[in-house]
């Protein structure tokens, strides 16, 4: 069940405190977000998007989840994933995450190949995140897909994403600056997801829309949604621009290692104009570099507990909640509880405000 984040972030101004061990209780308090060590979070029993379907053929491609090797190839057209390369002379033990043959559970959906990291017997297609703007059987053109890497841990990359105020500064040349008549942020969450809705009235028009969508008005109303599936580190970034286009982006942050993130991005711009449809997905290359310029030096600073607390503004509510939810989930997994208490596969069209008429499959 979704809950609404109805209380403000801690306004504690004493941002120095004695270092303490991360809370081990299953329901840490909001203050626990200052003990955020994303480098130590390892999520299990989850589907991770590993490759675009067009990237996998007969020859194995290499992927990793938390440094565990995934070699993926097709046998009789069907994707398989193994922890051993077919040509490898096996000298290491099989991990507990694969079956007797060293194979991971794998499935193909939304034009992506998903690998299950966790107990193989718990793999269930029902735990696949809902992405209602992507055709279930894939088929979007390649120019709407890309592989992009972030030089930081996956949770830091997702915290960056759910904090959209950074975009007005770091990505102002792509998505526009901070000027608007009003800005409202709402946060909804359950044990497996967090959704942030940011509504802006009369925001300065995104330069990329000005140049490639032909928006002539000086301002536009914007509704931006970020929805994160905590376990799989997958996110939806859905922007509705008026005037302008609907731009839903699948933004997974697969933790290849605990300090580097891989994004098998899919942006469904099918409904946008021809120029924008081709250009907008390419903006990811630029935006990701801008993000990495900040998150890369951030990442080692979140590898250890520190007595220095982070400062927060009221716009960080979603980010703080994200930290807390991730810590709760990690604590629960540490205690041996891997159950899904909320269903990530339920259609989230209403939650993200998807204009379904634009995305019929």
């Amino acid at each position: 069940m979704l809950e609404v984040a109805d209380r403000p972030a801690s306004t504690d101004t004493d941002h120095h405190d004695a270092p303490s061990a991360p809370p081990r209780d299953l329901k840490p308090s909001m203050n626990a977000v200052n003990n955020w060590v994303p480098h130590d979070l390892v999520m299990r029993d989850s589907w991770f998007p590993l490759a675009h379907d067009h990237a996998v053929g007969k020859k194995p491609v290499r992927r990793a989840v938390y440094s565990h090797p995934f070699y993926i190839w097709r046998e009789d057209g069907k994707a398989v994933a193994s922890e051993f390369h077919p040509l490898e002379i096996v000298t290491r033990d099989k991990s507990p995450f694969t079956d007797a043959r060293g194979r991971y559970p794998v499935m193909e959906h939304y034009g992506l190949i998903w690998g299950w990291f966790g107990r193989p017997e718990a793999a269930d297609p029902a735990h696949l995140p809902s992405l209602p703007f992507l055709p279930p059987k894939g088929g979007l053109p390649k120019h709407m897909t890309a592989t992009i890497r972030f030089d930081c841990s996956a949770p830091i990359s997702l915290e960056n994403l759910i904090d959209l105020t950074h975009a007005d500064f770091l990505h102002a040349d792509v998505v526009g600056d901070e000027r608007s008549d009003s800005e409202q942020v709402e946060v909804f969450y359950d044990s497996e997801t967090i959704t942030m809705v940011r509504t802006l009235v009369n925001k300065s028009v995104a330069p990329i829309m000005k140049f490639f969508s032909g928006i002539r008005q000086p301002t536009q109303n914007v509704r931006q949604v970020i929805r994160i599936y905590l376990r799989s580190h997958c996110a939806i970034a859905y922007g509705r621009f008026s005037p302008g286009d609907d731009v839903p982006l699948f933004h997974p942050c697969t933790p290849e290692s605990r300090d580097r993130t891989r994004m098998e991005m899919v942006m469904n711009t099918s409904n946008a104009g021809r120029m924008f449809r081709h250009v907008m997905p390419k903006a990811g290359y630029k935006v990701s570099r801008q993000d990495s310029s900040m998150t890369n030096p951030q990442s080692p600073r979140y590898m250890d507990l520190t007595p220095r607390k982070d400062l927060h503004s009221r716009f960080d509510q979603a980010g703080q909640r994200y930290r807390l939810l991730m810590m709760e989930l990690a604590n629960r997994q540490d205690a041996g509880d891997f159950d899904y208490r909320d269903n990530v596969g339920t259609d989230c069209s209403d939650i993200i405000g998807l204009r379904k008429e634009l995305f019929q499959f």
Partner: protein
Amino acid sequence: MASPWWKVARSEEVTSAKPLAVDIGDQPVVLWRDAQGIARALEDRCPHRRAPLSRGCIRDNGWIQCGYHGWSYDGETGRLKDIPNMKDEQKFPPVYKAAAYAVAESGGFVSVNLDQKTSAPAPVAEQTFPLGGTTVVGLSQGEWIDALFDDPGLVLNIRGVQPTPYLMSELREEDGLLVMERFCQWGKLHYPSYATAEFPITLITRTRPDTGETEVVLRDDSFRTLLTAQLAPVQAARGVTQVRWRAKLGDELKGRHALALRRKGSFEVRDAVDAAALRVLIRSASHHGQQLRDKLLSAPAVSGPSVSEPSVPAPTISAAA
């Protein structure tokens, strides 16, 4: 905990023609070969007037002779054997000796143990790595290893290989070694690594926690080994590091870039590290490297395979590491 064996020279550097001066931290050591061709190591300090023995010469009988007053020492025991001005009195008390260190030779490296009571292990491997070199780097050994972990391209030059910031597996413990695998690209003309879906090669490093000896393996995406190198970084005096290395190419090289490795100079340890690039290199893999090293070193006994040719006993650790 036992004192570690330091690979302080390549076999061909130690001769019976001229003494070789090396150091392990601030400890100077002189190496040479005696009349039987056995590598010997003494403290590089004549007990008479503290002159470096490495400034002297090797006599036909295999003793090392100080260049200052001509005192000669036996390499096996360090005992004084001869004083030129005392031809009539050539029997000296046992305290008349230089500090002798245990020496081991295997796999094309000469190793020294600073613990004088340590007995040398039997050689266990032939030298099969035809390429080799010695590089002196203006970095401490710890910083050099950290740079190797965070950006191997700063300290190694492998023809046509561009290391990326992306790891197939992050630094971890495996059989008592610190192991990681990094994605690499070929050549200079390619998409930026952050926008690349598949990488053709990886660089695997296996590092001993005590000595920093590292085995480097370059492997392609079909699991073919293209190159194997052994690196022996030893902390030397004045904060510099001496890196001895050996390398060999894989048996099966396929593709233009892999075949180019056959050309001369396909592997080297850089003698100059780009300090400006190093200063801004974000600590990533190395961040937990020291913690991991400390954990391994404090373990009661580290067993398992040694990196490179096993010229030294199974890694056991010294506080001097």
